[in-house]
Every structure is written in structure tokens, then in C-alpha cells.
């Protein structure tokens, strides 16, 4: 089916989220919609899916204008959508999930499970999805859950599939499988709209690329456009994708973690005998699919979680058994993975957030009393230094964009003398310009001789910044490898494959993304 959007305009109040966007997706084409967070990609897709009424413009399917009053209409017309956050009920089986909202009910309104199962098996077999219709959703890996979402869309005879940031939650190998699935769907004639901000994937999969910035189409591109070119289109100015850093000059051991074991509240082992050493002047990146113990690792270092056994020493001094405050005072800098829940207090002012963990030390407080003037001056100074765009330091921090909020967190943690920096997902949900800046700051901190433990579920980030990379899987360290290790090897390790085996496998089978890597390396 051919999809055409003509002059789609969507305004919210006086502001224009989509400004007369034109987009043509040919039948059987994989069309990438590339843009930064907030560029208007999702708004556009929500218009297409019938969730928003466009203020202007029209949608054409096979050259016939259509109007959707809701997702039901869109689904009936053959449009399927796989959301970034899956819309699945964890306790349902695959068959039930697929049937939900489209129940093949028999007499008395009883759901015909057999038909539902049959449909799942049919689609699963046709595309080689390998999904058991009887499996319960919460037991399935994320990659398979995503396939369930795709099956759901296909079972409603979707001719156009919208995938919203589908790779955000996948390991490289799972991504590779998804790419394979997308190619099969394409071969069957399904058109795919693929929303992403990851340049590498776009170049590996897409047939054509539309770049959106500030709600407008700013360019069309082909897969052979270079990443740097795509990035500048996306951001609107030239950006350097690679991180400039000199080789690390590691010194003494800074942070030493040995035999660290942590249980969660249900007594499941979440950290399994972890041994890690971060030396002064190096960045140790911890890679891995999210939820494999990285969160617990950083929280245990800060003291939010007490370990069952093992030790954490900083410059030879034991940290375990002390509280969070004394660890902060001992020079632990901490950039939490979830800015909104742990990094900032959204109702507090920008100035207050700049001193969130320094509120009771000189010069910000004296004799138990805060000194608003000093706190404000500090905020103005740091905001300037770290290029935080704000109107007034006394505004609530929620008025700042995500990137600027994150800069506040980074500035706060780096503005005091550090003995170690623990940075967890430091650039999550941050615009490209700020990513570049934050990366530079982290490298600068390393060059000052601070040991840096960087946790990132973005493999690119771990590879760009890490001098060494430790891969975590199910609470254990699979292996620690040099920063320039092959992407496929890392990907396999992220799935729990030990180093040697991963190297052997990677030598045999190259994923699409790694192949793209190879090309890039050959190009210059």
C-alpha cells in the first residue's frame, strides 16, 4: 500500500508541532523518519494513527484521501503501530495479547482462544518469528515481546507498519533479527515507517530517509549519505559524532570493587560476585542491556543499596557500611540514570538543584541556614560555565529542557573535587548538542585524573567513551575488553556469550550494523 501525507500541520495552541509535512512511503519500502527528540516525529505518526486530528493537510492511502477519527479507523485501513513502550499486558499469553481489542469471540461472547492461537502460529511461521502462542508475556525477552507487537499488527492485516524507536530496547543481535524481520515484511509487500534517531541503523536498513527538524521536513536522504551529513541535517549544524579523546593514561587504582554480591528485596541475586577496578585517568564503560544489574551496581557504589558481601574501596578506603552523604563527601560524583526520579527535584528551583547534594556545606549554608544569595550566584556561574540555557535561576527546573536539566546534574557533580565519577546513562533523553558537550566534560574529568565508571546501555556511547568496556549480563561481568572491541563481539557478550566464543561467532556472522561499521572504517 502506498502512503502519502500531504501538508500535514498540527498545532498545539500557537505552536506548530508539524509544519506542512509531506511524506511519501512507496509500497514495500522501508522509510526511515529521522529526527531528534521532540522534532515532531511521534506527533506526525500519531496523526497518521488517528490519535491526533491534523489541523491541515491530508492522508492518502493508495492515492485515496482518508480520514481517521481514531486508531480503530487507522487499523481498519491497514495501518499498524508498534509503540516504543509496548502496549502489552504482562500476565496475558501471546495469543491473548494478540486477540485483545480484536477478540475472535464465539457464541456467548466467549473468546475463541483456538482461533487466536492459530492466527499467532500462522503469522509466526510465515515470518519465522518463533513465538509460542501459549507463552506468557512477562516471561518473554524484550525482543520477543516486540515481535508479539508486530504479530498483533500483522494479524489485523496491517499493510503499513509504523515502528516507533524499535531498537531502543534491543541488543545488537536482537536488532539484527529485527532488521531481518523488517526485510521479510518488506519482501511481502508491507511498507514500514521506521522512526529513529540512530543514524547507524538508518543507514543499514532504510530504503529512503526523511529528516525532520523543528516540525518540518528538512531533507530527504539515501542510505549512502554519511552519518556526519545525516547528523548535521538532523541537528541543523555540524556536529562531530566521534568523541575526541587522547589515549588514556591510567594511573593507580581508584575505585576497586571486589566480590560484590547484592540481593534485591525478593532475595534474587542482582549482582553476582562483581570484580571491577577503575584506575585513575581512565573511563571504564559498563555495557549491557538495561536491567542486567547496572542500576544496582551504581546504587551500591553510592550507598543506596547495601551489599550482601564484597567490598568497594576508593583510594584504598572502604566505602561499604558508610552512608550516602559520607560517600559523596569522600569524593564520589554520581550522575543517576534516571534524571527525573533521582537527579533533580522538578519543583525545586534551578539554583536549588545546583546544590542538591551540597546544601549543607560552606559556602552554601552557614550555621544551619541556607544562603540564597550565594546559592543563586553559584547557579549563575555554573549555568554559564556549563552552557545551561535558562531564564532565571529561581525558576523551577522543570521549565528547562531535558538536555539542560542533565547539564545541571553534570555541572553539580563535576563542580566539586572528585575522587571517582559514576555516570549512569549520562546522555539519556538529551539532545545531540548536549550529548557532545556532556561527553567532552566526562573526558575532561578523566584527563584530570579522575577514575570514571560509565554505565551506558547505548553501545555506541560505551564504545566511544570507554577506554575499557566491562560487559554485564544477569548481574555478572561477562568480560572486560579493550575499548576498541568489535561491535559484534560486544553484542554477543551482552547476551551472555563469553569472550572467546563471542569472538569465534562474530568472525563467522557479521550483523548488519557491524557491517556498516566495517564500511565506515574502510571509507576514510
Amino acid at each position, binding site marked *: 500500500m502506498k502512503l502519502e501525507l500531504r501538508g500535514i500541520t498540527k498545532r498545539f495552541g500557537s505552536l506548530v508541532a508539524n509544519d506542512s509535512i509531506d511524506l511519501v512511503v512507496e509500497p514495500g519500502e522501508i522509510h526511515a523518519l529521522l529526527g531528534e527528540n521532540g522534532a515532531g516525529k511521534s506527533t506526525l505518526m500519531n496523526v497518521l494513527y488517528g490519535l491526533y486530528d491534523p489541523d491541515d493537510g491530508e492522508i492518502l492511502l493508495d492515492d485515496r484521501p482518508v480520514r481517521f477519527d481514531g486508531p480503530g479507523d487507522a487499523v481498519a485501513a491497514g495501518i499498524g503501530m508498534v509503540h516504543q513502550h509496548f502496549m502489552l499486558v504482562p500476565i496475558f499469553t501471546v495469543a491473548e495479547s494478540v486477540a485483545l481489542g480484536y477478540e475472535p469471540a464465539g457464541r456467548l461472547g466467549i473468546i475463541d482462544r483456538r482461533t487466536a492461537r492459530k492466527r499467532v502460529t500462522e503469522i509466526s511461521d510465515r515470518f519465522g518469528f518463533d513465538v509460542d502462542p501459549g507463552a506468557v508475556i512477562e516471561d518473554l525477552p524484550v525482543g520477543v515481546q516486540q515481535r508479539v507487537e508486530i504479530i498483533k499488527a500483522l494479524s489485523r492485516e496491517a499493510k503499513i507498519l509504523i515502528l516507533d524507536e524499535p531498537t531502543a530496547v534491543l541488543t545488537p543481535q536482537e536488532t539484527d533479527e529485527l532488521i531481518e524481520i523488517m526485510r521479510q515484511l518488506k519482501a511481502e509487500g508491507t511498507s514500514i515507517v521506521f522512526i529513529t534517531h540512530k543514524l547507524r541503523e538508518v543507514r543499514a536498513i532504510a530504503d529512503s530517509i526523511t529528516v525532520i527538524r523543528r516540525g518540518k521536513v528538512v531533507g530527504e536522504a539515501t542510505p549512502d549519505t554519511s552519518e556526519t551529513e545525516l547528523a548535521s541535517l538532523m541537528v541543523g549544524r555540524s556536529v562531530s559524532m566521534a568523541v575526541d579523546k587522547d589515549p588514556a593514561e591510567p594511573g593507580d587504582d581508584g575505585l576497586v570493587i571486589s566480590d560484590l554480591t547484592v540481593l534485591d528485596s525478593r532475595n534474587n541475586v542482582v549482582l553476582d560476585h562483581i570484580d571491577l577496578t577503575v584506575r585513575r585517568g581512565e573511563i571504564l564503560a559498563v555495557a549491557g542491556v*538495561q536491567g542486567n544489574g547496572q542500576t544496582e551496581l551504581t546504587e551500591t557504589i553510592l550507598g543506596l543499596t547495601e551489599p550482601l558481601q564484597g567490598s568497594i574501596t576508593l583510594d584504598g578506603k572502604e566505602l561499604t557500611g558508610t552512608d550516602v552523604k559520607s560517600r559523596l563527601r569522600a569524593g564520589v560524583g554520581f550522575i543517576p540514570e534516571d534524571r527525573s526520579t533521582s537527579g533533580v527535584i522538578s519543583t525545586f528551583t534551578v539554583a536549588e538543584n545546583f546544590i542538591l547534594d551540597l546544601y549543607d556545606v560552606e559556602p552554601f549554608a552557614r550555621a544551619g541556614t541556607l544562603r540564597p544569595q550565594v546559592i543563586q550566584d553559584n547557579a549563575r556561574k555554573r549555568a554559564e560555565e556549563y552552557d545551561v540555557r535558562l531564564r532565571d535561576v529561581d525558576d523551577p527546573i522543570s521549565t528547562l529542557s531535558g538536555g539542560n536539566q542533565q547539564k545541571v546534574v553534570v555541572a553539580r557533580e563535576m563542580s566539586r573535587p572528585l575522587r571517582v565519577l559514576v555516570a549512569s546513562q549520562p546522555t539519556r533523553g538529551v539532545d545531540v548538542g548536549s550529548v557532545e558537550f556532556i561527553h567532552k566534560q566526562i573526558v575532561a574529568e578523566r584527563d584530570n585524573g579522575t577514575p570514571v565508571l560509565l554505565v551506558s546501555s547505548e553501545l555506541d556511547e560505551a564504545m566511544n567513551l570507554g577506554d575499557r568496556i566491562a560487559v554485564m549480563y544477569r548481574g555478572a561481568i561477562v568480560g572486560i575488553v579493550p575499548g576498541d572491541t568489535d561491535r559484534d563481539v560486544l553484542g554477543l557478550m551482552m547476551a551472555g556469550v563469553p569472550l572467546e566464543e563471542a569472538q569465534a561467532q562474530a568472525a563467522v556472522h557479521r550483523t548488519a550494523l557491524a557491517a556498516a561499521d566495517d564500511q565506515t572504517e574502510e571509507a576514510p
Partner: protein
Amino acid sequence: MSEHEDRGRPEEEPQVPEEPRGRADGDARAPAGAEARADGEPEAPTGAEDRADGDARATAEEPARGTRQPAPGPSRSAQFVRDLLSGSWLVTVLAIFIALVLSGVLIAGADARVQDAAGYFFARPTDMLGAAWDAVSASYTALFRGSIFDYQATSFARAIRPLTETMVFSVPLVFTGLGIALAFRAGMFNIGGQGQIIAGAIVGGYIGFGMNLPVVLHLILAVLGAALGGAIYGGIAGVLKARTGANEVIVTIMLNNIAVYLIAWLLTQPAFQQPDSNLPRSPYVEATALYPTLLGPPFRLHLGFLLMIAVTALVWWLVERSTFGFELRAVGANPEAARTAGVSVSKVIIVAMLVAGALSGLGGSAQVLGTEGLLTAGVAASYGFDAITVALLGRARAWGTLAAGLLFGALKAGGFLMQSTTQTPIDIILVMQSIIVLLIAAPPLVRAIFRLPAPRPGRRQRSVLEAQEVAAA
């Protein structure tokens, strides 16, 4: 969804706010946990070059806001505190206005003449309207005369006595209201004002009548004792919450009941009874332990009023300016972030409840060492519950609570004269207070009635825009 599972669901770029959540789309919605997490991460690009992006996203988020599931943030109480603090003064004033209008309707409806005239309303509607006007204006005039200034009084002292009565009634309300407001700021619902007043009154009262001490020292000790009694009583709830996670609402309500029966039992014990009497009344507090009156007879206004103003200032400093207040507000707004910043959340919870209890205990001292002068089972009257309303009306801020306490003191003082001169039942005052609270707790309702714009999204949008204009410049 449990925390564990939540973590198990990886997500990278939370870009969700663009997605309209309110509309059902026939798909199974993800469980609340996943959405809440994503919502918690509003994402806006910045800077000159990204300006329109910011526009797109600031707006894209708005439509979702109204229909989104409530309390997506770290906790329900944090959300409540946020709403409470962000409410505008206009809403407060309008809420009081509506309460006066609705109470007026009730006053008219309860009036015998109005009821008579309603019988022949269609023959002579002016009769009923006139009667209604008379009833309402007479009641509100009496309310004013009873609480602020009695212009019909024969002497100046009598004319201003109502105002001093208002001040007297406000003292326990403000003290206890401050205790509840402070707990609100720490993210806790302290419903235990009543029990804490009683606990304070018991200790303060016992020191007052059971001991013989020199003049100044006796009062100081009795007041401190009252604060200590309240602090211990509030502290129980704090410790239980911090150590075991017990819900402070339930604990404080139960503690209220315990306090009510504790004082009833104590007043049957010889140590707490007037000699040669079987009545459940304590001996009178020694004159050395009473708050001295400020103006002398016939005024009841006592030193507790000045103490109340000083304590209000102290609470303001403690919450808004002290480092402990920073911790307290951080815990109230986002306990997770507070913990990450090195704040001991359980310490804050315990200390906050100790201080809140001490403030309510001071409210008890105002009763037993001030207006009442002795301990009875009804020493706390309903101040502990009225104070919740006072704290809400004062938006959990120190000076706001003081103002709200004065208003409620006025309603209390004026209610008596209103009842005696116009036969308007004093229960109307309770209705009035309840309507005010209902409207404060439901700002959207007030906004809807007066067609006010929703304050937060608008302000936020403006700020984001202005911020970007600044950046662009």
C-alpha cells in the same frame, strides 16, 4: 508493576510525552508503571537552534496532560504537595467567596421567615427574596460583629473584644496547623493533630497544676513540657513510618483514638482529678504556669498569641531557609532524589514528625495554659481536625497557615454571636469551612466555575518559551 520488573523493561530515549495517552486506542494499554516512568521524563531540546523543536514538544505534551492518569510521579503525596504549593492565591480567595455565597443560601433556607414566604413565592416573590436578604445580611453582620469589631458595643473595650477573641481562638489552630503544614511539606499527611494536642495538654497541664515552681520558670517548663508531649506523640508515627513503612495516616488516626481514651482514663486517676471531686476535671493550673494575659480583663488574649507569631516565623525559617528545611522539602518533593543527594529520608521523617507533634503540643498548651486553664476530656475541642483545614487553606506555608488560622478563629468567634442573635445554627460555620476545604482540594473545580486558565501548563509553556527566547538572543 514491581520495581524489579520495571527495571527489567529497558528503555532508552523516553520520547513518550508526544504520545497522547488519554485516548483509548483499542490496544491493550501498558501497565501504569511503564507509562509512569516514561512520563516522568519530560524531554525538551533546547537552545537557539532547537527552538522550534522545543515549541513542538512543549505543546505536544499539553493535550496529554489533562487526561493523564493521576500521580505519575514518585509518589502520590509528593504530587499532592506539588499541587498544594502551586495553587494560586486567587483560587483561595475565590474559594472563600463561594463558601460565603453557598452558606448564605443555607442560612436563608434555614430561616423561618424565608420558609414562610416561600409558600407564596409566586404571588409575591419579593417577600421571600427580601426575607432571604434580611436573614443572610443579619447573620453575616453578626458574624462580623462577633469576630472583628462590634460597632454596636457600648464601650471601646467591648467593641474590640471580638477581635481579641478571634486571636484567642486562632492560637491553637495556628500552632496545630503549622504542625500539619510542616508534615505536608515533608510529604506526610499528619492527621494526628488532635492526639498531639491532647498529649501536649496532658504533659503541659500536669506540670501546670501538679508542680510548684517559680514564676517565669513554671510557665517555660509547662510550655516546653507541652511541646515535648506532642513531640513524643507525633514522633511515634514518625518512627513507625521511617522504620517499618507504616502509613502515617492510619497510625496518626489510631493515635488520636488512643489519646482520647488516655485522657479520659487519666481524668479518673487521683493525680489528675480535682481534690474532693469525682468529675473528670483536673485541678486548675497554677497561676504561675498560665500564659499571662496581654490586655488584662475582660480580654482573654494571652501571651500564647505572641508565641504563636514567633513560632510561625521560626517554622518559616526552618522550612524555607534552614538546611534541615531543604532536606525536608526535598524528601517531600522527591524522596528518591533526596536519598541520592545524601539525605537520610528516615531521619527527616522522624524529625519532621517530632517537630510537627511539638507544634501541635504547643496548640495544646494554648488550651490548657491559656483559655481553659485546666484539663478536661474536651481540651482539644475539634482543633486537631480544624487545623488540617487551616494548613490546607494556608497552602502548607507558615505565613499562609497563620492567615488561615486567623480566618478560622474569626469564624469560630463570630459563630457564637451569630447563633445567639439570629438563630442561625452555628453548624453553618462548619459547612463554610468544609466548602472552603473542598474547593481548595479541588482547584480544577474552582477554575472551572470561574473559567480561570489552568495555571501550571500555561506558566510552564511560557517559561520554556521565554527561556528559549533568552537562549536565542
